């Protein structure tokens, strides 16, 4: 065990820091996804041109081919420099791309990966359905095979960035009459295909960021199936385990900064004299430190064995719940000022309201606890 980074890694950190210092945009990212799309694309392009996109992605697809530790260093410095959230590029960079790297054909990788990295192609996710939330295997959107095409009918929901996306990672039932995890396929869907209809949904924060998507005889070439027909569950899980492993580092650094900001505010206003507030802030400082240590442990595990440890679900759960407690503390310290909130405002109230997603999206905290109980502790499966 050793907490020190190597001289080479420290040098890399300085490089990241210098570039970010010079290049982080001074204007804030627009609040609504539709307004933010140009901003997101331009920023991703700038990252790509300077060689900061896909640090640990393979070189042949536009990445840098560096280590996961360097990727972690980049994400830490990225958040420390208060660089903007990657927004609409999130799904491509954190889900679609990594899934293609693991499961895609050469043609799929060559076509999509460089475009994801450069911000040219925006991706969205198509997993959840009105009847398949936590119970993801209950997917009913179906695709019949006609010649060399899939014909898709059904609906997906909670699809972030659907209204601005070019491509979708779509999980559909390709075997008629199949049940649960069997008979699903992971497909690359062109969002501009006839028959795809996107109905945006407003969040309680006032933002329009996700949508319901309807498919009416949508024709997708069979060559867009990733990982083979019927392999959809396996392919989808490879993405989720990535997300639960290392997908939260920037969030964690951001949380650490938010906490220091809250502490400074509590000192300025005198709120720190309240014993409960001081106690909660002290508690969260310890937890932020522990979360970073836990992520480092997980990264060390990836370096050593090639995959995240079983505690990745713990990181996912703990990051989400700590983030919500931070947002609640911010609200408490803000006092009555929160009552002036109006839709369209990018404030801590909006952060608080959209923060409810953290314990729901990508597997609810209850599902995470099931996974921890069953995989870490070996308790009997209840589903």
């Amino acid at each position, binding site marked *: 065990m050793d907490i020190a980074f190597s001289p080479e890694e420290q040098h890399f950190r300085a490089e990241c820091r210098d570039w970010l210092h010079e290049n982080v945009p001074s204007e804030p990212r627009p609040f609504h996804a539709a307004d933010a799309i140009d901003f997101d694309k331009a920023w991703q392009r700038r990252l790509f041109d300077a060689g900061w996109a896909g640090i640990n992605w393979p070189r042949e697809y536009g990445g840098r081919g560096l280590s996961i530790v360097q990727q972690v260093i980049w994400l830490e410095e990225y958040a420390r420099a208060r660089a903007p959230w990657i927004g609409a590029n999130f799904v491509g960079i954190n889900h679609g791309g990594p899934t293609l790297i693991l499961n895609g054909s050469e043609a799929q990788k060559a076509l999509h990966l460089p475009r994801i990295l450069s911000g040219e192609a925006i991706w969205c996710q198509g997993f959840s359905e009105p009847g398949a939330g936590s119970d993801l295997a209950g997917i009913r959107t179906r695709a019949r095979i006609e010649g060399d095409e899939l014909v898709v009918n059904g609906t997906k929901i909670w699809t972030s960035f659907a209204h601005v996306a070019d491509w979708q990672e779509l999980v559909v039932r390709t075997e008629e009459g199949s049940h649960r995890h069997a008979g699903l396929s992971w497909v690359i869907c062109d969002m501009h295909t006839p028959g795809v209809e996107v109905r945006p949904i407003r969040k309680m924060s006032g933002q329009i960021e996700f949508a319901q998507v309807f498919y009416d005889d949508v024709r997708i070439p069979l060559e867009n199936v990733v990982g083979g027909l019927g392999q959809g569950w396996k392919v989808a899980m490879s993405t989720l385990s990535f997300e639960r492993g290392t997908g939260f580092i920037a969030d964690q650094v951001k949380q650490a900064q938010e906490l220091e900001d809250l502490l400074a505010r509590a000192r300025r206003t005198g709120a720190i004299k309240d014993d409960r507030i001081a106690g909660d802030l002290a508690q969260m400082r310890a937890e932020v430190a522990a979360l970073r240590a836990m992520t480092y442990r997980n990264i060390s595990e990836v370096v050593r064995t090639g995959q995240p440890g079983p505690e990745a679900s713990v990181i996912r759960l*703990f990051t989400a719940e700590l983030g919500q407690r931070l947002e609640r503390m911010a609200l408490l310290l803000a006092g009555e000022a929160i009552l002036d909130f109006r839709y369209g405002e990018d404030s801590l109230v909006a952060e608080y309201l959209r923060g409810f997603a953290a314990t729901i999206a990508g597997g609810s905290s209850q599902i995470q*606890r099931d996974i921890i109980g069953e995989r870490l502790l070996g308790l009997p499966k209840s589903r």
Partner: protein
Amino acid sequence: MDLTPSAEQEALITATAVWCADNMPLEQARQRPSALWQELEAMGWTAMTAPDVGLDHATEAAVFAELGRHLAPVGLVSSAVAARWSPHAGKAALALLDGSLEGGKLRVFDPHGAVQALGLAGHLAATTALPRDLDGGPSLDPTAPLARLDPAPRFEAIADPHAALHLQLLAAAFALGCADAARDMAAAYAKVREQFERPIGWFQAIKHICADMAVRCAVARSQLYYAAGALDVGADDAAFHIASAKLLADQAALENGRANIQVHGGIGMTDEAYPHLCLKRAHLLTFIAPARRDILLGDAA
């Protein structure tokens, strides 16, 4: 940067766990044989970071978590710190001082055979010679015999603040082990105890209690390893990281101690069953070098 145990550390952790299971099972924590201390000394656990042994704190913390998991005698914590920092040689009982170096009341845990006592006086570790043949009586923690001295003998402070951090780190390691023990006990019981014709661990109400126990352990262990590494490299923020480790390990031990009893139901409330041993040990450890809020908030002098 690598926060997973090395192959050698892993081997040492496993060897410790195996030895403890064979020679120091948790189930016998209330009646440890009098020869046990000599065996613990022979295994080297009382002096892992002593000048002539020189292992690092990261290794020591990981091993102490295993010892703590079996509710090893609390004198191990004070003795390991004494072996590195005290002017006296020999077993050090774990002292809980009244605050100052002299006078006042003194509680000494695990005093049998101890020649000195070590504890925290203010912000520094401190030691004193103990009268021979001091024996312990009952305490809240049935695995930690307690002697009370009033007035206390005069303590000598150990000037290097590293010694106090060492004590806090090992107390945190013991607390983590205690939390691990409660988690494992609860999970094992939830797999075999049946109600409504199935193991109670099948029900999410019980499963999620157990999951939260695992979360607390994972969080506390990560911070313990990082804190130990910070102390090893003499990092500026080592005191903050060790205080964080102690806070989280204490909470894990206490919360898991309580949850374990709840998962066990009726039998969990009895003297005969083992869950209360973890809870009571957890309460004791919260008093040993507790995390200071000024350090956690980063405004200590």
